[in-house]
Each structure stands twice: as structure tokens, then as C-alpha cells.
């Protein structure tokens, strides 16, 4: 059933893996053997797109862990939830949301409506609990009732002032007598209008009273130094229907509908984490198809899509402007891209349509190493923890690799459409702030001064096990008529992973396909994220001396670092053998852009020698050639 109602989902988190339920069940086992490992597992299991039943299930396991003897999370907090209506259904979302950020939360929820007595009576359960944070939440019906005696708008304004002043007293006692930080939830705007568009002119209007109160809460919270939980803003963005269910309200006095409880809990957890200094500090962007459309190495500085003139160009520009807004607020910007650095910086320096300039990016890493290694380098250069990084990349392969290798880094599941990425980053609450200080705004400058342009040494990440889990299949065939357009396009577009950079038109390709003693091969890569399409082409021919000459070898950079070239050579060697060849010959012809394959032949086991002008000639003896071991399965595709 694909239909989902419009409940707010944690859509920036990846889908639950198939073994999720089994892993949660395993966590609930008694006794807890290795507490630290179990807690790490609970944190990992919280980082998926959880529905409310799944949130409740994981919460039971989390509570089980936290009640175990020797429970010792590195970060924790004691939260008292004081409310005018039911909150028991929200506790799981808060605990799981905090676990997602590595924080263990213990909660205290007196029966609803009890908060005044609890705050005044030093013998109450609240004082015994000794909270570090008090969260106040008042439902709209309760708040709106304060407007009922208003005769004039002046009355309504005065009553709103009085109501907010009564809250200030609650905040003060929580802070001064309990020594707790205070979070005040803004009032959920769900009261129906009874006057229409100009409802605000009705003195007794509940809906108008709630907007008066919410407006005052913003000023009062700043003055009192407490934090808001801006439920009103969130509800306006997501739509009331997803957050408020009359059935839950009338049936159980639950103002936040059950399906919204994971989102509510995640919002609370962000404020808690921000207060503990656990908000991310740096946003790391991929370049190709993330900050602009297209591939800079192939399309060139004027070929990439950015700026006015098209919807996509505007959308990429909008994302760049959002990044600049983050930077103005004190978030450090970094780049992590598989590219030659000289090519990758070009748009920043030479393309006027770009909003981002080179100096806006504090740490710029473009090379051909795997991204987890580069992200570690970025964190080290900026001298911040990995958990202070957020990584934005359009490629699901790279996202999953980073999550697997460096689970501390938050990698949002950004939508394919660049127009939706700013909203995703904002909904995900990546860069939650509680107070903005001059330091925040100065921070980017300081980091820029500290960041050194180091030479990046290679640091290995356990790629093999990750690649193995991708279930990659390389499907190859001799192309048919229907493939010619794509094969030709790839031949002419690929500048970087291209041994000879020979350009051919469709009739050239057709001629090569028809030639005796020649071979045109196309390769398609399929993995568990889907079909990457035709990503590589090899063209070659047999010369008189039973030697197979590789005339063209090119591959899309999208699948770099996945052992595809080794698997391709395995295919190529068997095709060449079948054609009667005993040797493979290859040649690398350098261009400005294809430095990445300068050592390809040597890496794959060819005996190479350098000719003039950087040209490399390589030969591979097919009789002694051992197939490359890769994690890719090879299949021959029929036409």
C-alpha cells in the first residue's frame, strides 16, 4: 500500500533496513552483556525513518538498556514534561529522538494538569526527580479558555499578557528552584475560526488569542533566556491535519496526534542536543549534481547548470544561497568531491552565475579518494568532531558508504530535486541553534584561518565489505541499434575516465560494431540502489598479430571507486581470448582532464612504458593473466 496520510515523517532519515525489527528484539534480551555496544546499536537503530509503532518498539529496548545496572551513556538528561493534556504518547518519541543524538533521556511526567502543585510543593515527585530540563506544553483549548471573558480587543491583549506573565512565573520557579533549563512549546494553532478572515477582531476568539500568545512567547522567551519549541511554525509548514487528529484529541486528550509523535520527539531532542553543544557545525557539500547540475569534469565550466535560465539552474542557485545563509549564521561550509581540484574550483572562480565563491568554502577537498577518508580529513583540518559534520550528496551510493563507515556524520536522505534540499535540511534540524552569539558569526572566519591546505595522505576505509553488500552486477553486451545513441553520448561526454578521448559520431560507432575483428562493448551497472544505466564503453580490434588493441576505454565518474574497471578488464580479457588474442594492448593519451586514468593500465596489471609527451603504452599477456578479484558479479546481457 503506497498511500500514506500527510503525517509528518522523518523523511530525511533512510528507510528501515529489513533486519531492523530483529535487531530491536535482540537489544531487548536480558541480561545486557556489553552495555556500550548495545547502546551504540540503539543509537544506530534510531537513525532510521521510524513510524510511531517502530518508535515505541525501539523505546522499550532503550528503556530496557537505560534501566540496566551499569547503564552509562556519555550524554544524558533528566526531562520533566509538564502539560495541560496527555503526553504519555510523546515520551517514546523524545527518548528515541534523543538516542538518535547519543543522549540518554530519563523522563518524569506527572498526570496532566498537575504542574502547578508540583512546582510549588518541594515535597513533590518533581523535586525528587530533580530534572535538568523542564518542558512546558499547554494545549490550545486550555489556552483559548483564557480569552472567554474579553469584552474588547484591549481586554484580549491584556489577557494574553497576563497569561504569558503567568508562564514567566512557572519558568522562573523551574529555573530558580529546580535549577533546570526551560523549554516552552508554542501553542498548537488548531482552534477553528468562527468569524472568518477577520477573526482577530473578535475579542473572545480562541484562534486569535493563540496567535497573540505565540507572538508574545517569542519576546518573553528571549527576555527570560528560555528556549521555545516552535510547534506552531512546524504545524503551519506541515499542515494541521498531520499533527492534530480530532479522534486522538476527543478520545484521549492527545493534542499531538500519535503518528506525529516521532517528529515531535525529534524536535524536542534537537533543542536538548543544541543546549548540550551537540549541533552540527559544518555543512559539507558534494559538487556535481548537488551544488550544480551536471559533471564539471565532463560538461565544463560553461556546461554545468547553475543560475537563471532554467528551473533546475535556479534551484541549484537557491541551494547555494541557502548555504550562504548558513554561513552567515556561523555554519562552516566545506566541499568533498570526486574531481581534480583544479577543475572543481573553476566554477567558484570563473562562473559568474555561482552564488558560492571559493573563499566561502573553508575546507575544499577535491580528489579521487573515497569520501569517508576525505570527510575525516575535513574534520581534522577544522579541528571538529565527525559528529559536527553534515554531508549533503545527491548520490545514494556515497551517502550509504559514509553512513556505514562514519556513523557519527549526519547524512540526510536529500531529495533528488535540488529545489527541495533546503527544506529538507531545515526540516531535519541539522543546524539547530539555541542562541546566536558573536562567536557563531565569527566562527567561519576563524576556521578559515586555521584550515591548512594540507596534502591529503591516503587513509583506507574498509571498502570491500561495503561494496560486497551492494550486490553489484555488471551487465555487458555488444550494443545493438537501440544502444547506439547512449553509447555515442557517453563517448563524447566523458572527459575524465577516458584513456584516449577519441570522439566518434553515431555512424563511426555503427561502423565499429560492424567491422570484422573488432569489438564494441557496453557495460551497465546495477546495485541495490537501482540501475545506474550504461556507464562504460570499450572499443577495440584484433590486429594481424593476434594482439587486441584497446582503442577506447571510458567510464562515467559516477561509478568510480567501485572496482568496475577491474571487472571490465575481466570481461574484456575473455572477449579478446575468444577472438583469438593472446595479448591486450592499451594506450593512455593525456589531456587536461583525464589525469585520473594516467596509471589505469599499470594499476590493472599491464606492463607499461612511457612514450613521449606523457603517453603511456601498456601490454597485458592474456596467457598469464589472472582475473581481478572484485565484489561485482558479471552477467552477459542479451539484446
Amino acid at each position, binding site marked *: 500500500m503506497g498511500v500514506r*496520510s500527510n503525517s509528518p515523517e522523518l523523511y530525511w532519515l533512510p528507510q528501515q533496513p529489513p533486519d531492523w525489527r530483529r535487531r530491536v528484539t535482540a537489544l531487548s534480551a536480558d541480561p545486557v552483556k556489553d552495555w556500550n555496544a548495545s547502546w551504540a546499536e540503539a543509537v544506530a537503530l534510531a537513525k532510521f525513518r521510524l*513510524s*510511531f*509503532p517502530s518508535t*515505541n518498539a525501539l523505546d522499550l529496548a532503550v528503556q530496557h538498556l537505560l534501566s540496566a545496572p551499569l547503564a552509562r551513556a556519555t550524554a544524558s538528561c533528566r526531562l520533566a514534561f509538564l502539560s495541560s493534556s496527555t503526553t504519555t504518547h510523546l515520551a517514546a518519541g523524545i527518548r528515541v529522538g534523543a538516542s538518535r543524538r547519543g543522549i540518554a533521556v530519563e523522563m518524569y511526567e506527572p498526570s496532566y494538569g498537575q504542574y502547578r502543585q508540583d512546582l510549588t510543593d518541594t515535597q513533590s515527585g518533581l523535586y525528587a526527580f530533580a530534572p535538568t530540563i523542564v518542558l512546558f506544553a499547554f494545549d490550545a483549548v486550555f489556552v483559548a479558555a483564557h480569552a472567554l471573558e474579553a469584552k474588547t480587543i484591549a481586554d484580549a491583549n491584556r489577557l494574553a499578557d497576563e497569561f504569558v506573565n503567568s508562564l514567566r512565573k512557572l519558568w522562573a520557579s523551574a529555573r530558580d528552584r529546580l535549577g533546570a533549563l526551560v523549554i516552552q512549546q508554542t501553542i498548537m494553532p488548531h482552534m477553528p475560526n468562527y468569524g472568518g478572515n477577520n477573526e482577530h477582531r473578535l475579542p473572545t476568539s480562541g484562534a486569535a488569542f493563540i496567535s497573540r500568545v505565540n507572538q508574545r512567547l517569542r519576546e518573553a522567551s528571549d527576555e527570560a533566556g528560555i528556549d521555545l519549541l516552535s510547534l506552531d511554525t512546524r504545524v503551519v509548514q506541515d499542515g494541521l491535519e498531520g499533527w492534530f487528529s*480530532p479522534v486522538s484529541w476527543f478520545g484521549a486528550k492527545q493534542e499531538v*496526534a500519535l*503518528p506525529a509523535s516521532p517528529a515531535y520527539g525529534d524536535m524536542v531532542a534537537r533543542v536538548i542536543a543544541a543546549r548540550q553543544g551537540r549541533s552540527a557545525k559544518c555543512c559539507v557539500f558534494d559538487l556535481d549534481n548537488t551544488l550544480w547540475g551536471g559533471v564539471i569534469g565532463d560538461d565544463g565550466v560553461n556546461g554545468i547548470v547553475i543560475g537563471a535560465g532554467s528551473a533546475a539552474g535556479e534551484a541549484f542557485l537557491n541551494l547555494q544561497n541557502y548555504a550562504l545563509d548558513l554561513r552567515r549564521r556561523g555554519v562552516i561550509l566545506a566541499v568533498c568531491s570526486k574531481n581534480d581540484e583544479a577543475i572543481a574550483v573553476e566554477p567558484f572562480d570563473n562562473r559568474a552565475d555561482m552564488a558560492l565563491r571559493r573563499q566561502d568554502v573553508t575546507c575544499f577537498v577535491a580528489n579521487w579518494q573515497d569520501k569517508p577518508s576525505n570527510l575525516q580529513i575535513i574534520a581534522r583540518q577544522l579541528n571538529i568532531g565527525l559528529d559536527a559534520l553534515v554531508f549533503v550528496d545527491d548520490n545514494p551510493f556515497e551517502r550509504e558508504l559514509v553512513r556505514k563507515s562514519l556513523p557519527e556524520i549526519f547524512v540526510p536522505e536529500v531529495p533528488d530535486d535540488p529545489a527541495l534540499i533546503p527544506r529538507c535540511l531545515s526540516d531535519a534540524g541539522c543546524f539547530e541553534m539555541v542562541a546566536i552569539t558573536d562567536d557563531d558569526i565569527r566562527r567561519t572566519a576563524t576556521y578559515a584561518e586555521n584550515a591548512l591546505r594540507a596534502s591529503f595522505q591516503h587513509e583506507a576505509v574498509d571498502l570491500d565489505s561495503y561494496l560486497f553488500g551492494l550486490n553489484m552486477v555488471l551487465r555487458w553486451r555488444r550494443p545493438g541499434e537501440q544502444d547506439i545513441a547512449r553509447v555515442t553520448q557517453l563517448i563524447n561526454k566523458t572527459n575524465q575516465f577516458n584513456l584516449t578521448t577519441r570522439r566518434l559520431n553515431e555512424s563511426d560507432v555503427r561502423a565499429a560494431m560492424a567491422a570484422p575483428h573488432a569489438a564494441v562493448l557496453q557495460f551497465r551497472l546495477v546495485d541495490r540502489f537501482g540501475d545506474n544505466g550504461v556507464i562504460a564503453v570499450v572499443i577495440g580490434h584484433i590486429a594481424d598479430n593476434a594482439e587486441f588493441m584497446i582503442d577506447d576505454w571510458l567510464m562515467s565518474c559516477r561509478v568510480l571507486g567501485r572496482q568496475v574497471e577491474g571487472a571490465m578488464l575481466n570481461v574484456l580479457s575473455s572477449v579478446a581470448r575468444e577472438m583469438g588474442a593472446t595479448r591486450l594492448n592499451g594506450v593512455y593519451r593525456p589531456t587536461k582532464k583525464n589525469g585520473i586514468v594516467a596509471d589505469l593500465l599499470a594499476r590493472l596489471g599491464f606492463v607499461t612504458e612511457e612514450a613521449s609527451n606523457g603517453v603511456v603504452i601498456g601490454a597485458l599477456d592474456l596467457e598469464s593473466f589472472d582475473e581481478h578479484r572484485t565484489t561485482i558479479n558479471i552477467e552477459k546481457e542479451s539484446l
Partner: protein
Amino acid sequence: MIDKTKIYDVLRDVFAEVFMRDDIPLSASLSAKDVAGWDSIKQVEIIMETEQRFGVRFASQEVDNFRNVGDLVATVMRRVG
């Protein structure tokens, strides 16, 4: 007209998610007394998750009348049609 077996397929998934078990034998007469842990909170979870899966919203009267799985299936059939 939505197929009754399809509804049961979806509900089996709902129950598995709510109770974290996939061995609950769903039948029209199955009710709270038959399943350990089926309390009023689980009852609301089942209803809400069913609403989510079928993209419908049940009315207060309907929710008050859910006594067993059969009632739930009948209401979904009426709503999804």
C-alpha cells in the same frame, strides 16, 4: 472494490509493526483479549497506523465501535471502497 485479502495483508503488517511479532493469527473475531499487550494505547496505535496505510481518516463514531479485527476490516472496506 478493494479485496478483503489485501486488507488482511496490510493489517498483518500493521499488527506486526505494532506488536513487533509476525505470528498473530488475524481473523475477524480477533480482539484485545486474544493478544497479550493489546491495551488502549495499542488500540490507538492500530487505528492510527491503519489510517496511515490506507490513507483514510476514521470518524470518532467509527473508532468508538472497533471491537475486533472484523470491525476494522469492514470500516476500511466502506472507506476505501
